[in-house]
């Protein structure tokens, strides 16, 4: 066994990726507060450090030092476990996403991804669906009516949107001819799939918004209606875990959008003689752009009503995704 190539390099990659993701999730809260504030004629956090840059740290310290309260009426084991499930699922998802090409680092060939598996896309869908368990279980075990309603919404939302997500990705698979995310990125060497699949991209974007419970589809949480939805009974670090899971999920989901539709770390046109590490920078820039979209949407539009949203998903989005799939299949078969 080659210890360096098979053990140390993957381990280091995994640790670095997890740390970067955690930091990204934490700083996403800061970024959102800052950007939202600019939309809303405010300053946002600006007390902790320059530009409030230390705010996420301050928040983390606060959350950790808060008293750990487990209400009497909850199902204790599941109640404590649920935020962890959400959080773990988010971290695992990123494992299959390539964030750069293969590069020479310290005399080693290193692929800039954690795991390169043939069924990467399937893995992605499976783990993403797992994350919703954290929400459903958390809401259920809280033994609170608001939490329960939030959890039910989350469950219904998950079933509807996983389906649409999957079908819109099938069209991509047809074109790229692979479930491997690295190969899907390679396929986008000339043009990002956004150009070939504009409709699929839109469907996917809406589905991923719903998947990450973000405005206008933040229905399991809906402050105005359900107080805090599934996390009403959570406080302290457990609440923070849900929170950071949500924001890390945003980062991860943006990375998925970038990988599948925006060409990953590749330049859109035919510029290929750049340093491979520049690809990582490009990947980051694209992710930041998608994250900005998230915040932009949240700051701009109201929330849809839950039942209308379900109707929209089953009666409009799903048929549309099928049409897109059939059209793509026809193109692939006859051209």
């Amino acid at each position, binding site marked *: 066994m080659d210890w360096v190539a098979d053990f140390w390099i993957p381990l280091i990659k995994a640790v670095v990726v997890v740390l970067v993701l955690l930091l990204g999730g934490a700083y996403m809260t800061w970024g959102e507060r800052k950007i939202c504030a600019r939309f809303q004629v405010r300053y946002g956090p600006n007390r902790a450090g320059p530009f409030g840059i230390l705010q996420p740290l301050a928040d983390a310290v606060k959350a950790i030092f808060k008293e750990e309260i487990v209400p009497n009426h909850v199902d204790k084991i599941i109640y404590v476990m649920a935020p962890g499930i959400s959080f773990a699922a988010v971290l695992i998802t990123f494992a299959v996403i390539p964030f750069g090409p293969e590069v020479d680092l310290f005399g080693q060939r290193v692929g800039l991804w954690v795991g390169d598996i043939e069924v990467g896309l399937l893995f992605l869908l499976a783990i993403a669906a797992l994350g919703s368990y954290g929400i459903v279980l958390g809401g259920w075990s809280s033994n609170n009516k608001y939490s329960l309603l939030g959890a039910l919404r989350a469950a219904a939302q998950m079933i509807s949107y996983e389906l649409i997500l999957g079908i819109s990705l099938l069209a991509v698979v047809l074109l790229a001819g692979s479930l491997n995310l690295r190969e899907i990125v390679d396929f986008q060497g000339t043009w990002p799939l956004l150009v070939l699949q504009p409709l699929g991209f839109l469907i996917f974007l809406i589905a991923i918004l719903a998947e990450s419970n973000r405005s206008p589809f933040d229905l399991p949480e809906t402050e*105005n209606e359900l107080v805090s939805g599934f996390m009403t009974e959570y406080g302290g670090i457990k609440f923070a875990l849900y929170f950071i899971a949500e924001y890390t999920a945003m980062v991860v989901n943006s990375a998925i959008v970038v990988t599948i539709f925006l060409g990953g770390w590749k330049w859109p046109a035919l510029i290929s003689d750049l340093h491979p590490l520049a690809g990582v920078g490009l990947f980051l820039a694209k992710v930041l752009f998608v994250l900005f979209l998230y915040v932009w949407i949240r700051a701009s539009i109201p929330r849809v*009503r*839950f039942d209308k949203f379900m109707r929209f998903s089953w009666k409009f989005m799903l048929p549309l995704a099928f049409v897109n799939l059939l059209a793509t299949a026809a193109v692939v078969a006859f051209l």
Partner: protein
Amino acid sequence: MDISRELRERFGPAIVAEQETRDGIPTLWVAQDRFRQVLAYLKSGTDRPYAMLYDLTAIDERARTQRKGQPAADFTVVYHLLSFTRNHDVRVKVALAGAYPVTASITDLWPAANWYEREVWDMFGITFEGHPHLARILMPSTWEGHPLRKEHPARGTEMGPFRLPVEKQEREEEALLFHPEEWGLERHGEDTDFVFLNLGPQHPGTHGLLRIVLQLDGEVILDAVPDIGYHHRGAEKMAERQTWHTFIPYTDRIDYLGGVLNNLPYVLAVETLAGIEVPDRVKVIRVMMAELFRIASHLVWYGTFAQDVGQLTPVFLMFTDRERLFDIVEAITGGRMHPSWFRIGGVAQDLPRGWDGLVRDFLDYLPPRLKEYDKLVMGNPIFKARTQGIGAYTLEEAVEWGVTGPGLRACGLEWDFRKKRPYSGYEGFEFEVPTAQRGDCYDRAVVRVEEMRQSLRIIEQCLDNMPAGQYKADHPLTTPPRKERTMHDIETLIAHFLGVSWGPVIPAGEAFFGIEASKGNTGYYLISDGGIHAYRARIRAPSFPHIQMVPEISRGLMVPDLIAILGSVDFVLADVDR
């Protein structure tokens, strides 16, 4: 034909007496056994009927000394009806005898009477036979006594120290439990168990201390039971111990977003009692301040309504605009939300130098912002989907339930006190009364947004035509009195001294004054017994009937719709509970 003659001819001896009041509203005392027929006739028998139960309240007459010409009574129940077709009010009084009298309920005539009768029972201990569920409404169910009775203490110091032993705390907590059976609600359906969701009193969507218990099938609302009173401060009781002058700050806090819009009906009612005619400058200053506060109130509503349907940004933009407006209010009055700035017979000070520049800037500033909000909020397709067709009621229902203000105009009735019964000089202003047709959440919003534009028009006219003159009436009851002559003759000095130390002595009588406030019609029904404070002050608050109606329009909808309805109704809990 004159309504009192019509009733006399029809009901003969059942009309016991007709009372002279300062406000000129025909006030008829009706025998206790016939008053239901009289009310029914007024509601639907007479041509151009008095369709709206505008207010229902009671008076504890036992300590009143000046009741010349009124039949003997220990308690009086007062029914105030309003006719839109006649643009006329009528007041029906029923004399009751005994310490805890019993009378008949009129909930079968007007469903809106439900809460009003509960309030009267809660406050006076008068029982209404035939009421579906005569429970306390403003006070906690464990309260002992009925606060607005004259023997009930008004101050904490009259009550003995407050103690909360564990048993009492448990009893109080127990009393807050909701028992569906008491309200005639089923726990189980044919093949489902219903969820009872306790929404509030602490809930982000209720804009204050409002508790609504929802009977849910899934997320569909089968029925709702609002529980109010968490914001009850006994303003009407306080009016009985504060002087006429020192009660003004309390009025600000009734509809706490309306500021001087609350002062206005109070001082107008007192001025009606006192017979004070205010100078033109006072009228125009009052109109300008009232319209500024109408905009301030509507801006808060606009932002929070958008927030209620899940839009995060507008509320910040609109609060920012409101800050600009408060800058003007601060420059003129020194206060912001609760300036307490109107006085009996005038306003507190003259306008400061430079006020016109501030107002002019605001008139230039707001219209483009409103245009932007049209695109941001009103034109947003998701916003429309959330509000159109939601929480709709017809004009008939609105009248039946006592809805006034923008909620009434959203059903297509062009009814605005500023036009129909101009007060404080509104007849001299050019503006339109916006209406809409469908009476749903969206249309209520449309009306309010347009009202802001019309208010700007009125303010501009105030700015262009501000008359010169005094900011206080030259009348002995003006409070505080004008001081110029106090050092020159002893009579004025004495009047000033008494006016400042005691406050004015308002001649005995009764007067109601209603105005078009931001949430609907706010009215003060004041009774003076010839003293330095009100014998009874009834505050007819618009939010009270509006909240009573919420279950009617939310049945069959979902929880998010309820939040949208609450947002579109635009209530203030302090206005509901007083």
